[in-house]
C-alpha cells in the first residue's frame, strides 16, 4: 500500500514543473550569483599609469609594482585622458611618472611620482591598498639611499644590514586548510538552506489532498491511515536526496568543490533529508492553512540560515547567536559538510552532527504522528 502511494506521488512530482524550479533552479541560481560575488579568489587592484619619462628607472619602478600578485598596471595614453576617466569614475587610481624621473634618481636628487585617486568615500577600499603600496615603494627607495650612505661609512655590507635591520620581525607561517575558499562555504550553505524549502512543497501537497477530498476518499479504501503518511513522506526524502546530489555535483564540476569522504557525505545527506522532510510533515499537519505553512517555512529556512551560519561564518556572529546555532539542524548539517569537504574528515568525526539530525528527525516524526490525528479529523469531518 505504501508502495502504491509512493509510486503515484513520484509520478505526480515528476509532472510538477514548479518543483524543478524550487528544488534545483533557484538554489543553483543562488550558488552561481553568490559564488560569482564572493568566490573570485584572484581579485587584483588595477593601477593606471602614464610614463612621461620612458627611462630605465621608470620601467624598474613599474615592474616592481607588477611583481606583486594583487596589483596590475594598466598603461594610459595621456594624463588628460586618464584624469577624465578618473573624474567619470571609470578608474580609481592613476600614477604619473614625470619627465626627468630617472635623471633625478641617478643624481641622487629628490623626485616625485604623482598619485591621482578617486576621493569618493565609497572607493576608499580600492584606493587605500594602492596608496599603501606606493608608500612602501617610496620607503624602499629611502632605505636603499640610507643603506648606500651607511655602507660607505662601514665598508661592510653585513654590518650595514645588521645595523639597519628592524627590531621587529614578522615571520609568515602559512597553514593551508584543504581546498577552502568561498565556494566551500557557499555550495553546502545554500544546499542546506534550500533543503528546508521542501516544507512548503510538503505542506501544500498534504493540504491539497485534505481540501480536495482526496484524503477522505483514500480513507474509504482498505489503505491504513499511516500508510498514507509514510507513502507521501518517502518521495519527499528521495526528492531532497536528489536535490543535495545535484547541487553538490554542480558545485564539484563547475566550481571544483572538493567533496571529501563519499560515505560521510552520503550518510549526512540521508540524515539531512530525513530531518528536513520530517519537519515538513510536522508543519503540514500543524499549520491551519497554506499561508501559515509558508510563514513557518520562511521563518525556519531564512532564520535558520542566518542563525546557523549558512550565509556568514559563525565566527563573525555575536556569542549569543553562536550558542543559539547549536540548537539548529542547519548549523550541524553545514558544519558537518564543511568538516568533510574542507577538513577531510570522515564519518567518525561527524558523529555529533549525525546524532543531532537523527534525534531531530525522531522528535519531528513523533510530534507529526500526534498532529496527524487532528489533520485526519479535519479531512473526514
Amino acid at each position: 500500500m505504501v508502495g502504491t502511494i509512493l509510486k503515484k506521488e513520484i509520478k505526480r512530482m515528476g509532472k510538477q514543473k514548479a518543483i524543478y524550479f524550487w528544488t534545483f533552479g533557484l538554489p543553483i541560481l543562488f550558488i552561481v550569483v553568490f559564488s560569482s560575488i564572493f568566490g573570485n579568489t584572484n581579485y587584483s587592484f588595477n593601477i593606471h599609469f602614464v610614463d612621461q619619462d620612458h627611462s630605465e628607472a621608470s620601467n624598474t619602478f613599474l615592474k616592481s609594482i607588477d611583481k606583486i600578485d594583487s596589483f596590475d598596471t594598466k598603461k594610459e595614453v595621456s594624463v588628460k585622458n586618464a584624469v577624465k576617466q578618473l573624474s567619470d569614475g571609470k578608474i580609481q587610481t592613476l600614477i604619473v611618472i614625470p619627465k626627468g624621473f630617472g635623471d633625478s634618481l641617478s643624481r641622487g636628487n629628490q623626485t616625485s611620482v604623482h598619485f591621482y585617486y578617486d576621493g569618493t568615500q565609497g572607493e576608499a577600499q580600492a584606493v587605500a591598498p594602492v596608496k599603501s603600496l606606493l608608500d612602501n615603494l617610496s620607503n624602499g627607495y629611502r632605505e636603499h639611499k640610507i643603506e648606500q650612505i651607511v655602507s660607505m661609512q662601514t665598508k661592510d655590507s653585513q654590518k650595514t644590514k645588521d645595523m639597519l635591520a628592524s627590531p621587529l620581525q614578522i615571520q609568515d607561517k602559512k597553514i593551508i586548510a584543504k581546498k577552502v575558499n568561498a565556494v566551500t562555504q557557499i555550495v553546502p550553505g545554500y544546499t542546506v538552506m534550500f533543503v528546508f524549502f521542501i516544507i512548503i512543497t510538503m505542506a501544500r501537497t498534504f493540504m491539497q489532498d485534505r481540501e480536495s477530498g482526496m484524503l477522505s476518499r483514500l480513507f474509504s479504501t482498505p489503505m491504513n491511515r499511516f500508510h498514507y503518511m509514510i507513502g507521501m513522506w518517502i518521495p519527499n526524502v528521495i526528492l531532497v536526496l536528489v536535490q543535495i546530489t545535484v547541487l553538490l555535483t554542480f558545485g564539484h564540476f563547475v566550481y571544483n568543490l572538493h567533496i571529501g569522504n563519499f560515505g560521510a557525505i552520503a550518510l549526512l545527506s540521508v540524515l539531512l533529508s530525513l530531518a528536513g522532510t520530517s519537519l515538513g510533515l510536522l508543519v503540514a499537519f500543524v499549520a491551519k492553512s497554506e499561508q501559515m505553512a509558508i510563514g513557518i517555512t520562511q521563518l525556519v529556512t531564512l532564520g535558520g540560515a542566518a542563525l546557523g551560519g549558512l550565509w556568514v561564518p559563525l565566527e563573525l556572529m555575536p556569542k549569543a547567536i553562536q550558542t543559539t546555532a547549536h540548537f539548529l539542524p542547519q548549523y550541524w548539517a553545514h558544519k558537518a559538510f564543511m568538516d568533510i569537504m574542507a577538513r577531510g574528515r570522515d564519518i567518525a568525526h561527524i558523529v555529533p552532527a549525525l546524532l543531532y539530525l537523527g534525534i531531530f528527525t525522531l522528535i519531528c516524526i513523533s510530534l507529526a504522528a500526534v498532529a496527524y490525528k487532528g489533520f485526519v479529523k479535519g479531512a473526514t469531518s
Partner: protein
Amino acid sequence: MIEILNVKKHYGKIEALKGVSFSISEGTCFGLIGPNGAGKSTMMKILSGILQDYEGDVHLFNQNAKSDSKEIKSKMGYVPQDIVLNETLSAKDNLSFFGSLYGLKGAALKERVEEVLKLVGLNDRGNDAIQKFSGGMKRRINIGCALLHLPNFLIMDEPTVGVDPHSRNYIFEIIHSLKKEGVTVLYSSHYMEEIENLCDYIALIDNGMVIEQGTVSDILSKYATPSLYVEATSVEESVLESYGNVLRKDGGYLIETKQPLSTLHSLSKKLQQNGNDVHRLEISKPNLEDVFLQLTGKSLRDV
C-alpha cells in the same frame, strides 16, 4: 444486507444524525434524499468507513463496520460528491492508482483499467491528463475509480452534479448495468427524476432524521394527493386556500385537491373574474419532490 441501526453523529455541538435507521437489500438501488445539510453525506461517510467515531450499529455483508472495516472496504466502492482525481496524471494512472489500493496489480490491473475505461466511455482518452477532460468526463473517471475492484456495494454521493446530458446518460447506463450485475447501490441526489428512475427504495432524510422510507411507488401513493399548479400575477394565497391545502412551489402555488378537474374549472373562472394574469394553470403529477415538500415544508434544492 446492509443495516443501519440508530446511528448518531455529532460535530461538536451540532447533531448531524439523530438516530438514523434503515436497511438496504442486496442487489437493489437505494436512494437517499434530503436537502443540503440533512445528513446524507455524513451517513455515506459512515457507510464508506471514512467516519468511524459515531454511535449506533452499522452492519455490511454481516460484518461490523467498525471492527471489520478493512475487509468491508475491500468489497465496496465510494464515489464522493467532489471530483477527486490527480489532475496532472492520466486517466489510466488515476485508475491504476485506485486499483492498486484495492490490491490489484500486474496484468489483472491493466485489464481492469481497460474494462473500466470502456465502461465509462473513455477508452480512447486513457493516456490523456485529467486536466484536459471536461467536467462530465472527469465525473465518469471519478466513478470509474470506484469500480476497478468490482465492488459488491457502491456508494454514490450526488454523482451527476454539474454534468452535461451526454455524461449524465452514460452515468445512468453504468448504474443500470451495475444493477444488472447484482451490485447494491446507495445513491444520493437532488434530482428527484433520477431517484425515481434509478432507485427501488428510498429514505427521505431531514435534520439528521429519516422521515419516511419505502419503495418509490409506495411513498408516492401514500403521500401524493392530486393537485393543481398555478402561477399568476397578483393572485392572493387566501383566494386559493378556498380550493384546498396550498403550498408554495417554484414561484407558484400547489393546491391539493381530491377533484382536480372540477377545481381546475372553477379556479380558471375565478382567476378570469379577478383579472389575474395567468402564466400556468395545470393538473400536477405528484412526484417525490412534492412529497418531500409536503412532509417537511422545504424544497430540496432551495434549503
